[in-house]
């Protein structure tokens, strides 16, 4: 994963790192589990769409009542023959 580019400002890198760390902390997922979760999501979606794997964003928002898991996956095109 190449989200921590050298010329990104430190504050943005901190923010992105924190978001990933907190997803793992909140869901009690190991970094390995988290990676395989991401792969599984991508696998299912790529069955139906061509997607931009590099720009996938995963977020876990916590409110008082519940946690909301959110995955933003840019779709390039719908697969032909569907």
């Amino acid at each position, binding site marked *: 994963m190449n989200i921590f580019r050298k010329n990104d400002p430190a*504050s943005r890198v*901190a923010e992105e790192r*924190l978001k990933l760390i*907190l997803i793992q*902390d*909140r869901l009690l997922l190991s970094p390995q589990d988290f990676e395989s979760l991401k792969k599984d999501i991508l696998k299912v979606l790529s069955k139906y769409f061509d997607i931009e794997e590099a720009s996938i964003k995963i977020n876990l*928002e916590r409110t008082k009542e519940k946690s909301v898991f959110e995955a933003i996956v840019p779709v390039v095109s719908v697969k032909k023959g569907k």
Partner: protein
Amino acid sequence: MGRTIVVTAGKGGVGKTTVTANVGAMLAKLGKSTVVMDMDIGLRNLDVVMGLENRVVYNIMDVIENHCKIQQALVRDKHLENLFLLPASQIHNKEDVDIDKVVDIVNSLEGNFDYVLLDSPAGIEKGFESSVSPAKEALIVVTPDVSSVRDADRVVGIIESKGIFSISLVINRYDLNLVNKNKMLNFESIIDILGIDAIGVIPEDKSVIETTNRGEILVNYMPGSPAAKEFSLIARRIEGETIPIKIEEPRNFFGQIFKRGVQ
């Protein structure tokens, strides 16, 4: 009935004790009778930050073990007559604390004072539990760095599971110069990431070190300093006033000092 608020954090060294002393002093200045309780058994510090170390006679363990009454253990502040310290014991361990007894002490204080602030120890071990259990509200102190925010998130989870839902962040040691250069997390993203509102953003302020060294509380000794001004706003927000968070440009502040020095 008084309000009991625990001042806590996941990570050590983020300013819990400084926040407890200054918010406590500001509430007292607003006319509210206030007790600040040092729950860091074995590593007490609040007495030193308030400059009251020479006046400590009894401590919370003496109260728990019935060696004295609560009133005898309370130390009155040097300057504010309605601010009191209940010191921690230096010779006990956190495991020695009977949580039910702490809850009893806090309940009894709530009957006589407007505010009870609990200065919790760092970490999420036993001492943390005994400082959180008696509280209905929590202030979580966090500095704008990755490890502090991460640990704060853990603490939020634990506190919520204990039934405290009135939780606010105190973002401490905020350096607007670094934020403007995109080198430090800004307070909006900390609020966003943790999903908890902030009750104050305290600017990095070297006066804190100076006043702590002198054994004076910042809001008493240097009430015009940037951090003291924000502590004053936090106390007013706790009291229910709606005051939006506004970060002062540090340059203006130094400009003001300069002007004041010249006149």
